[in-house]
C-alpha cells in the first residue's frame, strides 16, 4: 500500500462514496413490491404508490441502515486503534449491551406505555450506552490516565452482566409486553422520519470528521503510548476524545437501530486490508464500507425470505464472517495480527 497522499485520500473516499450512492439507488429499487427508483421518473398509473413505497418505506430504512453501518464501522476502527487491540469493537466494549439493557429496562418498567409520545426506548438505550462508557472510564483509569488494557476486560464482564439482566427481565416480565423491544434487540432497521435521519446524519458526519482528524494521532499511538508521546501526541486527550466520539455515534445509532453485531469488528479489518492502516483514510473508509455493508445486509434481510423478515444481525454475521476469513487468508493471514 503506498503511503497516504491527498490524491489517494480523495480518490479512495470518492470511490467509496460513489459505491454507497449506487448501493442506495440499487437497494431502493429492490423489495417485495416491484417498484424501482426509475418508476419515479416515469409516468406510470400507480405513480403515487411507487413514490410511497420507494421514498417513504424503503429509502428511510436504507438511510438508517447506512447511518448505523457508518457509525459502527468508524467507531470500530477508532476503538481498535485507541485500545491497541484488533478485537475491540463497540459490541465487545459493552456499549451496545448497555443500550440493550437500557431499552429493556424502560420497557419492563412500563415507561414506554407511560409516555407513548416520546422516544422513551431510544432515550433509555442511549442512556444505557452512555452509562456504560462512564463505567468504563471510571474503572479503567489509573492516576487520571485512561489505561487501555483493562477496558476490554471490563467491557466483556459488563456484557455478561447485561445479558444476565436482560434474561432476568425476559423471565420476569410478561412475554407480550416485550415484543417491541425484542424486535429492536434483534436489530430490525426501523423506518424513521426524515427529520430524525437528518439530525442523526449531522451528528454522524461530525463524529466521523472528528475521528478522521484524530487519525494521525491514532497512527502514532499504534506504536505505543510512550512512542506517541515522544512524537508530540497528547495521548490521554486523544484517547478520551476518541472514546467519547466513537461512543456517542455508536450509542445514538444503536439506540435507534438496535445492537447490530459484527459490523464494528469486521468492517475496520476489511477496510484495513483494502486501504491500508493509515487512520486518516481508514476511519472514513470504514464508515463508508460499513454503510454499504449494512444496507446490503438489510436489503437481503427484508427480501431473501419475503414476506418474512430476517434479523439483519443474522445476515451481517453470515455474510461478514466468511468474507472476512477469505480476505484474511488472501492477504497471507498470520502476520496481520502479530
Amino acid at each position, binding site marked *: 500500500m503506498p*503511503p*497516504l497522499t491527498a490524491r489517494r485520500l480523495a480518490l479512495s473516499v470518492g470511490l467509496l462514496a460513489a459505491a454507497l450512492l449506487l448501493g442506495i439507488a440499487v437497494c431502493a429499487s429492490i423489495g417485495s413490491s416491484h417498484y424501482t427508483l426509475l418508476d419515479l421518473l416515469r409516468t406510470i398509473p400507480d405513480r403515487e404508490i411507487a413514490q410511497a413505497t420507494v421514498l417513504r418505506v424503503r429509502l428511510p430504512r436504507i438511510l438508517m441502515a447506512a447511518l448505523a453501518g457508518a457509525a459502527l464501522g468508524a467507531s470500530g476502527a477508532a476503538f481498535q486503534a485507541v485500545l*491497541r487491540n484488533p478485537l475491540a469493537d463497540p459490541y465487545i466494549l459493552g456499549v451496545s449491551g448497555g443500550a440493550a439493557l437500557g431499552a429493556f429496562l424502560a420497557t419492563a418498567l412500563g415507561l414506554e406505555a407511560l409516555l407513548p409520545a416520546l422516544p422513551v426506548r431510544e432515550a433509555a438505550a442511549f442512556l444505557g450506552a452512555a452509562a456504560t462508557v462512564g463505567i468504563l472510564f471510571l474503572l479503567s483509569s489509573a492516576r487520571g490516565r485512561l489505561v487501555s488494557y483493562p477496558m476490554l476486560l471490563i467491557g466483556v464482564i459488563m456484557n455478561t452482566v447485561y445479558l444476565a439482566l436482560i434474561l432476568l427481565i425476559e423471565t420476569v416480565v410478561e412475554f407480550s409486553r416485550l415484543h417491541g423491544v425484542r424486535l429492536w434487540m434483534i436489530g430490525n432497521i426501523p423506518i424513521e422520519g426524515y427529520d430524525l435521519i437528518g439530525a442523526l446524519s449531522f451528528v454522524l458526519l461530525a463524529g466521523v470528521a472528528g475521528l478522521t482528524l484524530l487519525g*494521525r494521532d491514532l497512527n502514532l499511538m499504534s506504536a*505505543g503510548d510512550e*512512542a506517541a508521546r*515522544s512524537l508530540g501526541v497528547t495521548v490521554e486527550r486523544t484517547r478520551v476524545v476518541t472514546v467519547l466520539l466513537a461512543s456517542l455515534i455508536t450509542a445514538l445509532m444503536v439506540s435507534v437501530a438496535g445492537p447490530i453485531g459484527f459490523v464494528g469488528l469486521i468492517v475496520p479489518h476489511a477496510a484495513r486490508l483494502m486501504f*491500508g*492502516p*493509515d487512520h486518516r483514510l481508514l476511519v472514513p473508509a470504514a464508515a463508508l464500507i460499513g454503510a454499504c455493508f449494512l444496507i446490503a445486509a438489510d436489503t437481503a434481510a427484508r427480501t431473501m425470505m419475503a414476506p418474512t423478515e430476517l434479523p439483519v444481525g443474522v445476515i451481517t454475521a453470515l455474510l461478514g464472517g466468511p468474507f472476512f476469513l477469505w480476505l484474511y487468508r488472501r492477504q497471507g493471514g498470520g502476520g496481520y495480527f502479530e
Partner: protein
Amino acid sequence: MRFRHHGAAAPLFDRLSLSLSGGEFAGIIGPNGSGKTTLLRVLSGVVSPEAGDIRLGGRPLRSIPPRERARLVAVVFQETQVLFNFSVLEIALMGRAPHLGPWGLERPEDFDAARAALRDMDLADQEDKHLQELSSGERQRALLARALAQEPRILLMDEPTAFLDLKHRLQIYEILARLHRDRGLTVVATSHDLNLAARYGSRLVLMHGGRVAADGPPAAVLTAGLIREVYETETRVERDAATGLPFVVPIAPVR
C-alpha cells in the same frame, strides 16, 4: 530529581542530578535495573519526575508544548511493537508528525526527509515492506529512521544495537557519529556493550541502583575496580593499541 515507579515504595531516583551538554555523545551504562531506561524516559519527557525537573536549554521540559518538544528530542525505545501493518516508509513518515500542522498530510519535503532517513539506515529498497516482514535488526533500523526523520537536536536511544549483528551495530554507531559530527546532534544512548560505548561516547555515565556511580571520559569510568563494584564482574581493562581507548575483557562474575 526524584522518580518513583507507579506503586513502588521507594523511589528509583532520589536527588539524581545530571547535566548533559549540547553536542555531546554520551553513553549511559550500568547493569540491568540500574535505571538506564527510566533515565531515558524521564529525559525524553514521556514520564515526569515526582520532584525536581528536567531542563532543556534552561526551560523546564514539562513547560515545552509536546509537539515543540518532539522537534527537539527524539527517542527510540527498546522492543517497540507497532500494531497494524504499516509499511517501513509509513513508519519513517511518522517521524515527520511534529513538523506538520496538527491535521495536515505529509508534504513532498516530508517524504524526502523520511526517504533520506531510510537511506541512512540502509532500508531504501525496503520502504514498501511491512514492519512485520523485517528481521529484528531491520525493524530496529526502521524505528531509528523514524527518529532521524524527526530531525531532532537531541537523540535518545535505549539499547540501539541490542538486536543487531556486528556490521549493523557498527553501522548504526557510525551513522550516529556522523550526525553528531556533521550536524551537531546530541546523542545519548544506553548500552550493555561497554567497548562500543567507550569507542563512540566521549562521555560515559555509569548508573548503579538509581545513582550515578561514575561520570566522565571512558578512560576514567571503565576501571576494573568500578566495574567489579557495579557489575559484580571481574574484568581486565586493557588499552586498545589502535584507538588508545579502554577495552574491557570480562573474566568471571564475582561470587
